[in-house]
């Protein structure tokens, strides 16, 4: 067992535990906080995989912006927990059975079929240099310039859409 592997296994345990905590907490606020912890764990995985830029984006955008928005909405609606009422009693066992099948299938396909093989690159000092970041930035603004611009338009459209959706319509009696 190398230190890398031990670190991976501990983090994987935390990631799965927090994901399950998100799934099974009765209170939405706890779910959101579990999910924040999960996102931070995934960010540490990105660091281990030699992607510091993505790790920082993950923390600022996901753990920062997105989850704060979620917490805002949960507290705004006061929808921390729903009353317990089971409509379809067979839904939960069926869903768990299907999910286990999906996990086995996707793992089998991804591990055995077409994919790059080998070990992931060990996080060494070379990954975290400015040179690496500069190369990423150059690639983003040359080869991927069009997708980058399209993304900015997408964000603008999303912003306008969100404002329009929550705007009060004039002359409508509620």
């Amino acid at each position, binding site marked *: 067992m190398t230190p890398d592997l031990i670190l991976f296994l501990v983090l994987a345990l935390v990631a799965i535990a927090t994901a399950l905590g998100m799934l099974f907490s009765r209170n939405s606020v706890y779910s959101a906080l579990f999910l924040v912890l999960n996102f931070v764990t995934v960010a540490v995985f990105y660091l281990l995989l030699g992607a510091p830029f993505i790790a920082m984006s993950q923390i600022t955008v*996901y753990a920062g912006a997105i989850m704060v928005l979620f917490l805002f909405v949960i507290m705004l609606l006061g929808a921390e927990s729903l009353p317990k009422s089971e409509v379809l009693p067979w839904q939960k066992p069926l869903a768990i059975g299907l999910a286990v099948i999906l996990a086995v299938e996707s793992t089998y396909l991804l591990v055995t079929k077409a994919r790059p093989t080998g070990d992931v690159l060990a996080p060494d000092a070379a990954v975290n240099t400015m040179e690496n970041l500069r190369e990423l930035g150059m690639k983003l603004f040359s080869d991927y310039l069009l997708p980058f611009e399209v993304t900015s338009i997408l964000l603008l459209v999303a912003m306008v859409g969100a404002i329009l959706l929550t705007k009060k319509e004039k002359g409508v009696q509620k």
Partner: protein
Amino acid sequence: MVPVDYYIILSAILFTIGVLGVLIRRNALIIFMSIELMLNSANLAIVAFSSVIKSFSGQIFVFFVIAVAAAEVAVGLALIVEIFKSKHSIDVDQMSSLKG
């Protein structure tokens, strides 16, 4: 050194937990969070592959996925707030009529 298979298996497990969340929870916000979890697990697999082939393309792709997720959350939460205003509930079982 960690074999890439371990990352793929972890990604598959996280994705499955996300799918399970969509299937068994009735709170629209939790369902939405499960979708975010699924996006995240897919990102993890992409970054792992990108690290194995020693290329930046995967990382740039994940960057775009994060941007799209942010846009999706903004619109999705606005929709959930609107649904709550008209139905006074975010239980997806209550959303059974086409008329608002």
